[in-house]
């Protein structure tokens, strides 16, 4: 049974594309502000939000560009509203400076990138996974970020909810790194009623305004967050700042701040990192694939198994922070990692770094515009088997 509650929340089974499922995930997570700018192939997220947000009492605004969109969601978050934007490569590039502002101000929010092929305008309507490193390093300076990679409309729905929970928990912008294929693919999406109590909300100040320091962290390295209009009369700045939120122009303060911004994610990586594994237990060839490519890799792995090759699939659901411990463990037993991705080599270098020379790493590149054919990945698996080609 599919239906809509009087609060405008959906429940049941629906046939929808990934972009629409992303919007529904946001609404289920309590997102009530969306700012965006039209861009293929992410436009359907904005369109769905413009229709749905007013139904649940939220605000949709179409901004003048992606720079403005990114800033608007930061502002809304500081007013206490869960907020999101969605874009694709060119817009994602424009958002980078202010994604850094979100990191520096420790602002919960969600940024969705429905990836298309670049560089530049590239192939606006066609798939790629070329923004994976930009997601990690796109803004200047040292920081850590959280990025999730969905493989299906159902998963983009689920992971958008997770993204909001992680952003509220860790006070960091969380990226949903989807792609055109998932965004435009229509499948069944099961929408469960999400209990408000099951959603994570940012910590509120526990001291009166005169004692409140916006960047005084708790033991978990995360400071409670006041919002505008509640009498805390706080100051926050993109400059390096002390616990009071005041500019602190020296190396010591910078060291303290940057370490905490990075460590609050790193020390909690076990809580953040999620992977799916298929047949990795005895695998000597491990295909490491994410997003739409993982769905194709799954078939290649099955076929390899049917040929008697001990192949397995490691699918990072969290791509940042990178599941390096797991790769290290697998590298002790596996002979090779095969990494298909729709770019000319990005995540493969992370896999190679974590494998640390213990297992071979093979890239199966695809410049974008189409997904891999399963036989290309299968062929790479066959080639990676020890003994082949003088291996």
């Amino acid at each position, binding site marked *: 049974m599919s239906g809509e509650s009087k609060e405008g929340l959906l429940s049941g089974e629906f046939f929808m594309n990934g972009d629409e499922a992303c919007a529904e995930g946001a609404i289920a997570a309590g997102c009530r*502000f969306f700012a965006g700018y039209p861009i293929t192939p992410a436009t359907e997220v904005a369109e769905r939000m413009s229709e749905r947000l007013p*139904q649940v009492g939220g*605000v949709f605004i179409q901004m*003048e560009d992606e720079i*403005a969109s990114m800033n608007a969601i930061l502002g809304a978050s500081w007013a206490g509203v869960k907020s999101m934007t969605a874009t694709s490569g060119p817009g994602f590039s424009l958002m980078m400076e202010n994604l850094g502002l979100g990191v520096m101000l420790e602002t919960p929010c969600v940024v969705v990138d429905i990836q298309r092929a670049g560089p530049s305008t590239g192939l606006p309507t066609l798939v790629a996974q070329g923004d994976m490193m930009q997601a990690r390093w796109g803004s200047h300076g040292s920081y850590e970020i959280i990025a999730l990679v969905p493989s299906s409309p159902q998963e983009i729905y689920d992971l958008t909810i997770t993204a909001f929970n992680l952003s509220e928990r860790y006070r960091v912008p969380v990226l949903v790194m989807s792609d055109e294929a998932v965004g435009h693919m229509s499948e069944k999406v099961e929408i469960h009623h999400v209990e408000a109590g099951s959603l994570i909300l940012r910590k509120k100040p526990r001291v009166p305004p005169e004692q409140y320091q916006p960047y005084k962290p708790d033991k978990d390295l995360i400071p409670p967050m006041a*919002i*505008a*209009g*509640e009498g805390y009369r706080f*100051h926050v700045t993109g400059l390096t700042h002390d616990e009071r939120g005041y500019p602190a122009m020296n190396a010591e303060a910078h060291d303290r701040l940057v370490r905490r911004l990075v460590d609050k994610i790193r020390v909690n990586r076990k809580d953040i990192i999620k992977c799916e594994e298929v047949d990795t237990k005895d695998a000597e060839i491990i295909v490491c694939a994410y997003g739409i490519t993982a769905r194709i890799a799954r078939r290649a792995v099955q076929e390899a198994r049917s040929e008697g090759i001990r192949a397995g699939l490691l699918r990072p659901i969290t791509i940042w922070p990178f599941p390096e411990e797991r790769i290290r463990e697998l590298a002790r037993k596996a002979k090779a990692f095969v990494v298909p991705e729709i770019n000319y080599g990005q995540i493969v270098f992370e896999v190679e770094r974590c494998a640390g020379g213990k297992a071979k790493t093979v890239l199966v590149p695809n410049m974008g515009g189409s997904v891999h054919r399963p036989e290309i990945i299968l062929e790479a698996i066959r080639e990676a088997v020890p003994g082949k080609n003088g291996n």
Partner: protein
Amino acid sequence: MVTETHKPIDCYLRIDRMPHIWCAGCGIGMATHSFVRGIERAGLDADKVAVVSGIGCTGRVAGYVKFDSFHTTHGRALPFATGLKLGNPELNVVVFSGDGDIAAIGGNHLIHSARRNMDMTVICVNNFNYGMTGGQMGPTTPLEARSTTSPYGNIEYPFNLPYLAAASGAVYVARWTVLHLQQLERSIAEALVKPGFSFIEILSPCPPVYGRMNKRSKGIDEMHHYQGKSIVRNGADPKEVDITFDGPIIVGKFVDIERTPFWERQKKLLAKVHEKKQA
């Protein structure tokens, strides 16, 4: 003699951050003073005032006023403020930033925020150059004025900011120099309670860089220059208030009109959608 009694303005300032970073003779301190007096005059609840600044000398205002205050990125105060306002419409949102921040790198956001008639007050301190980076020319530098990147004299036409704001849809537009304390304070108070997009340009001296490059190196000289050249003309057509290097400077309240603000329309939209759902 007219005497006015004011509560000490200290309650609106982060006294623990004084002294501020502004140079001797700079007008931003006076602009900030007029701003907090304007807040008081308008009778606003300080807990519901949010100040957003961008980058630059004026961008530092957010750090010295004791409201919920945000020092954001270069040019982006307006969209940040837009999100803040739409996240909590009860906030009285003020953008306080400089001419380079608001009219150059953030120029697109200025015209679009005015077009939407977004409910906020923009206070733009115009010192005719980029002060913090050492006096480069900008979108308000008058023709012929010297700067560190126009050493032979500026050859670009400057923006007439009141005209730009008015043409883009602002419902309240005024310009004063930092010496017009009373008028400025009154304008700020009016703008703060005016629904929709208000824009106030404050002309300020920048003695160590713009002043020095243009033979007005003492703050007081530059102030006297602006004071001496100023002509108060309330209701002047914004089209006619261009600033030239040495010509008269028209100041006053130029625009005070009614136009449905963004939040008013948003509220109606929400009510309409809600009704449709009930039906």
